[in-house]
């Protein structure tokens, strides 16, 4: 029993932070906000830099060109991405799509190898988290997956679907899909609806295999969103605490007022207890522990609740200035609101965690 990161793991996180510090500045995010379109961001540079660092294929085996690491190495990188409101869907690519393709073994190895070599992006769609298990899209000829992340960049999609005959998971190249982008409050989230026709050549799992895979997608999606949430909350609460030192009212920094202290302290307490749950989920995925679905639900439940608390608290503490377009706080607020409800909100996930954990 040792629940801590290794020096190597911490160094990898720091490497990601350094890359993001240079390539994903508040000015970069503001450029996206002001243009109103995430596709206007300097995303190629960022994507390449993260690819060069090996982040994108961290969970792929060395045989296919990956680093052969696990989720414990990845989780810090995901937090770093959350902290800067990373516009690219790195979490879905590196934390959901790559490990699932990797888990399918030999049949997908050459495809994965090509993708990694080319630095292509994979996105995932068609799965919702729900207490009753993953819900996939019904289709009749065409299938539609809503709120797919990173649609502008994705070269491939891992897509779940269902009809009366059963459940499928398909691996579909972009050119076989129709993509309609979905405007979002968080402009930096590159969402869209993906429409495709499932065909035998694109099917990579069906029946029970597909059900298992979809369960993995749902849990992994929840886990990576929870990690991102911890990152964004950490950044927000740190910035907010600094703001309270500078902002003067009634002749004192507002951070000296007890009511302000206690509001911000509550967020910090929440973070103190959400993070270990996210790290535990990372370990469970890394080791394919039976607890991983439970742990992902627990992590997302705590992180979603924390994200909403952090957003309303940090806005309140900033006062009017936080409510403006020109203050960078809005980036984090909107990321929190989006991630809190994506991939299972707090209530859905805590129900899932309790039922998985207690009903036998």
């Amino acid at each position, binding site marked *: 029993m040792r629940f801590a990161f290794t020096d190597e793991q911490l160094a990898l996180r720091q490497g990601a932070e350094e890359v993001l510090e240079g390539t994903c500045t508040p000015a970069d995010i503001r450029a996206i906000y002001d243009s*109103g379109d995430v596709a206007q961001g300097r995303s190629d540079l960022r994507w390449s830099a993260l690819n060069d660092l090996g982040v994108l294929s961290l969970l792929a085996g060395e045989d296919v060109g990956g680093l052969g690491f696990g989720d414990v190495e990845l989780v810090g990188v995901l937090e770093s991405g959350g902290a800067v409101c990373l516009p690219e869907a790195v979490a879905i690519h590196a934390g959901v799509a790559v490990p699932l393709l990797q888990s399918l073994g030999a049949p997908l190895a050459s495809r994965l190898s090509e993708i990694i070599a080319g630095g292509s992006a994979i996105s995932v769609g068609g799965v*919702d988290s729900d207490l009753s298990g993953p819900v996939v899209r019904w289709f009749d000829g065409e299938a539609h997956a809503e*709120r797919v992340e990173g649609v502008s960049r994705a070269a491939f999609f891992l897509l779940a679907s269902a009809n009366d005959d059963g459940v499928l998971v398909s691996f579909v190249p972009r050119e076989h899909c129709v993509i309609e982008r*979905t*405007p*979002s*409050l*968080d402009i930096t989230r590159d*969402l869209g609806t993906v429409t495709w026709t499932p065909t035998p050549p694109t099917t990579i799992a069906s029946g029970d295999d597909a059900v298992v895979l979809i369960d993995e997608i749902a849990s992994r999606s929840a886990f990576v969103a929870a990690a991102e949430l911890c990152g964004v909350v950490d950044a927000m609460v740190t910035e907010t605490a600094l703001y309270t030192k500078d902002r*003067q*009212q*009634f*002749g004192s920094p507002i951070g000296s*007022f007890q*009511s*302000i202290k206690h509001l911000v302290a509550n967020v910090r307490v929440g973070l103190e207890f959400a993070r270990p749950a996210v790290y535990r989920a990372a370990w469970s995925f890394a080791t394919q522990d039976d607890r991983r679905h439970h742990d992902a639900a627990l992590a997302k439940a705590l992180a979603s609740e924390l994200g*909403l608390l952090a957003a*309303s608290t940090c*806005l*309140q503490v900033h*006062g*009017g200035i936080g*409510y*403006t*377009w*020109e203050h960078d706080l*809005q980036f984090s*607020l*909107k990321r929190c*609101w*989006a991630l809190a*409800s*994506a*991939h299972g*909100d707090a*209530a859905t996930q805590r129900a899932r965690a309790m039922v998985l954990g207690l009903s036998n």
Partner: protein
Amino acid sequence: MDFTFSEDEQAFRAEAAQWLSANIPAPGSLGSLDTKEGFEKHRAFERLMFENHWSVVSWPEEFGGRDVGIIEWLIFEEEYYKAGGPKRVSQNGIFLLAPTLFDFGTDAQRARFLPPMASGDEIWCQGWSEPDSGSDLASLRSSATRVDGGWTLNGQKTWASRGAFAEWCFGLFRSDPEQERHRGLTYFLIDMESEGITRRPIAQLDGETGFAEIFFDDVFVPDAQVLGDVGQGWAVAMATAGSERGLSLRSPARFSEAVKRLYELLIEREGEPSAPLTRLADQTAQAYCNAQAYELQTWWTATSIREGNGVGPEASATKIFWSEMDLHIHQTALEILGPNAALRERDGSLSDWLDGFLFSLAGPIYAGTNQIQRNVVAERLLGMPRK
């Protein structure tokens, strides 16, 4: 105690309902208040209301009102929100400035300013806050310097709702630089077309320009536009501050109508509620009970006001209550909507619930943060020590 509406009150309600149902524009047809086009459409509707004497029912008839009491005003508000009436572009003037004009203005000021305020011909914005004076309003530094026949204003105001398009501004300036905090302030009425005024619209969280910064660079204001006595600005402003915190900006019908929509949304997602309630149904029930409580407390306060009592520090309790209720209603709606809540419509606009949520987030901040209001409740309603 009598909860029956008199025949006169019922007749008033019927007349209001009839006119409103015939004249309220279709939902959304006026566009956003925060665009020039939407602003003018809203202004046109204000004029229509004014022409039919519905704009300011509680004002004397000479200024365009019906000279009715606060109970009738609440009845009108109920019918206005039931009919789906749009946001009032003239609200800063008619709800926040007008009570002060009635109490402290000269006859000439009332005659000059009230009718165009009520007709929407002159829209007012508020010039209270400054960049370094938010909750701590008494720290404001924008100055008024005595000159021949009036005053010269300098400085900067911010968070002026409607400030991007308004014709007039009311605000506090420090007229005596020797005095500090609450002393030495004067209340001015300022033509926004005056030389030396620059406005800079500020976009909100939703990207729309809800408010403006206003820069004053040697702006001349004649003596006739001082409201109340020179140096007494704080007392003049505070005498009716309860209006902003209390019921005038947030009539109960706004919330009870929102809760009805919330209940419909709940049923769409979960079906008719049955015992024991689900979490979301319970949150909806909380919203329902809060809206009902708010309505009842409003009638209680309105009766008290009608019987000659002023609005006291209870207004701070009211402000805390409605702002947190509003947030709760909208947070619940977004939870019911789930992951789709944070999406925009296809045309990029915000859904009514998301728009309402963003708006509700401002409630605990403006008109004195809820932190400040809780201090007031503790110190003035409960007698807890200031220091």
